[in-house]
């Protein structure tokens, strides 16, 4: 029972991070390798707002969320916008460069100490009982946040004007642009949403386990989950996260705790060998010359 709860919590962590990878890849075919760093930036945003709005935790969380969304827009407007016409290779390399820049800047500004934003917010991480198992309050919040995010994203992509524009831009950018969809706006929105969800994941993980450099590694470990499900499918990201986290939790429990960093990547390799476009991903069509 406890194992099942652990799997669900870990899966929701991965799923919440994954939807950033999926959103950006689906809309602009760019693999954002700065996602781990952007996630950490979101968590530091919460740390900053927590001390700024001391005594108003709800306000602080809302401000941090808005901040994360704005950071995503700024990243697009300042850097990725210039990479739109360039090759995908250049864009991916730019995200790597952005990642290392952000990591250095964050250490310079915030130092290397482990921070505890939850304590700064004035909340405590209670342990709740679910049947025979226990789950931390933040863990429960993570599961709820993930469910809410995915529900909202599905509704957004299916029903709203901007969501349909995003899907159109992802399917065929040229055609979408010619039908009057502003690609820059759509791409900026995708980056904003991705950074917002990633930042939210970062904040919640930081609340649970403390805020330190290992957050970036968690961001990278979530990437296999996105790929196992299929890089351009949100539903796939959900399923992929479940698969990867189940494999990770079970192997840690029954084999060796040290395996935790490797398991997602082994699952990834197995997936790449069997079905490289992922469980729910669309298989690439043939290119035209």
């Amino acid at each position, binding site marked *: 029972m406890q194992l099942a709860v652990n799997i669900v919590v870990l899966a929701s962590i991965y799923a919440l991070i994954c939807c950033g990878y999926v959103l950006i890849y689906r809309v602009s*075919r760019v*693999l954002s*390798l700065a996602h781990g760093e952007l996630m950490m930036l979101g968590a530091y945003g919460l740390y900053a707002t927590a001390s700024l709005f001391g005594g108003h935790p709800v306000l602080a969380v809302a401000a941090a969320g808005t901040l994360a969304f704005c950071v995503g827009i700024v990243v697009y407007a300042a*850097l990725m916008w*210039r*990479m739109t016409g*360039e090759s*995908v*290779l*250049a864009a*991916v*390399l*730019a995200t*790597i*460069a*952005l*990642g*290392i*820049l*952000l*990591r*250095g*800047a964050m*250490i*310079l500004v915030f*130092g*290397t100490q482990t921070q505890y934003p939850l304590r700064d917010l004035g909340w405590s991480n209670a342990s709740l009982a679910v049947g025979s198992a226990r789950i931390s309050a933040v863990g429960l919040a993570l599961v709820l946040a993930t469910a809410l995010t995915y529900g909202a994203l599905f509704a957004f992509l299916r029903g709203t004007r901007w969501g349909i524009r995003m899907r159109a831009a992802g399917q065929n950018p040229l055609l979408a642009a010619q039908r009057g969809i502003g690609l820059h706006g759509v791409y900026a929105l995708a980056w904003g949403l991705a950074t917002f969800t990633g930042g939210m994941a970062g904040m919640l993980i930081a609340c649970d386990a403390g805020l330190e450099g290992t957050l970036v590694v968690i961001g*990278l470990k979530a*990437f*296999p989950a996105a*790929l196992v499900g299929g890089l351009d499918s949100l539903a796939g990201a959900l399923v992929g996260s479940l698969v990867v986290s189940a494999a990770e939790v079970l192997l840690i429990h029954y084999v060796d705790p*040290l*395996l935790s*960093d*490797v398991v997602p*990547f*082994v699952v*990834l*390799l197995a997936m*790449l*060998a069997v079905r*490289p*476009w992922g469980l729910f991903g669309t298989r*690439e069509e*043939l*290119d*035209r*010359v």
Partner: protein
Amino acid sequence: MSGYFRVRYSEDFALLDTRVQKAWFAVFSIALLSYPFFANALWLDLANQVLLASIGAVALMLLTGYAGQISLGHAGLLAAGAFTTGILFKEFGASMWLTLPASAAVGAALGLIFGLPSLRLRGLYLAVSTLALHFIVTFAGGEYESRRGFSTGIVIESPLTDARHWYFVLLAAAAATLLFGLNLLRSRTGRAWRAIHGREAVAEALGINVHRAKLSAFVISSTLTAVSGCLFAYYRGFVSAEAFSLYITIQYIAMVIIGGMGSLLGAILGTVFVVLFPYVIDAATALLGIAGRLASGIFAVNYSAFGLVMILFLVFEPQGLVGLWRRMQSWFLLWPFKQRPLSR
């Protein structure tokens, strides 16, 4: 009528074309060969680091700059070479003549295994599987360390102890790698790589076996990288899993970007830039008098400066240092004109 004419095929194939080029090459070689007799210990060590890293940078340039595939497992491949060397040395007391080819073989095998998934899909899938490679190799290395009780790392006795001897060995290795790369790129394989970088579908339509070309690019690149890792292990005399973080991979990617995509000269220039960069930052902070304040976070300064420089190059000078050099060259050649004449 004056000018330079190639009248024999051998002249067409020659790497050094004109008399001026040959003269410059001779001057340059003499300068390189006499360098260790003038340099002090620090500069000699820096030169060795540059030569060592340039092997890995050339390997990455072949893969990323020419074949257009991103590898995020460069540090993992270096680690594979270094750990092969370390394990063979510790367990069997093997000499360098055994560990070097063994590292190369391990590199080639890893290249083959991790390159295979990328064949089934176009795009950036090599980046994905090489990321897996990085984590798996460093995990395996760390496991070996802790199981055998070398928790801090494996100490290797190097057959060479004098930095000057190392310089000549590394110079020979780097020169051999460069020559190999230059000739490979002029061959059928190299032309195939450039074609698939340009556009995969067209390359395939022209009769290039895209799968084979991609796989050969990755296998050759990873073999060279593993050899570089083996030399690294001997040069440092020490192997530990912590030394091969993702930051090393990013450094090598920085070399390729800053030097200039699609140029072996760029790989070398980028290596010089990246290896010397931390020392320049050190000197700059000392000059500004903020060294004391930043002492604890000097690596963070390096990180962010690296990222910034990479972004600046990607945005404003995608051709890298080589692009700058070529532009300067043509400025002097064409002066007082700005553009090349339209008809050539």
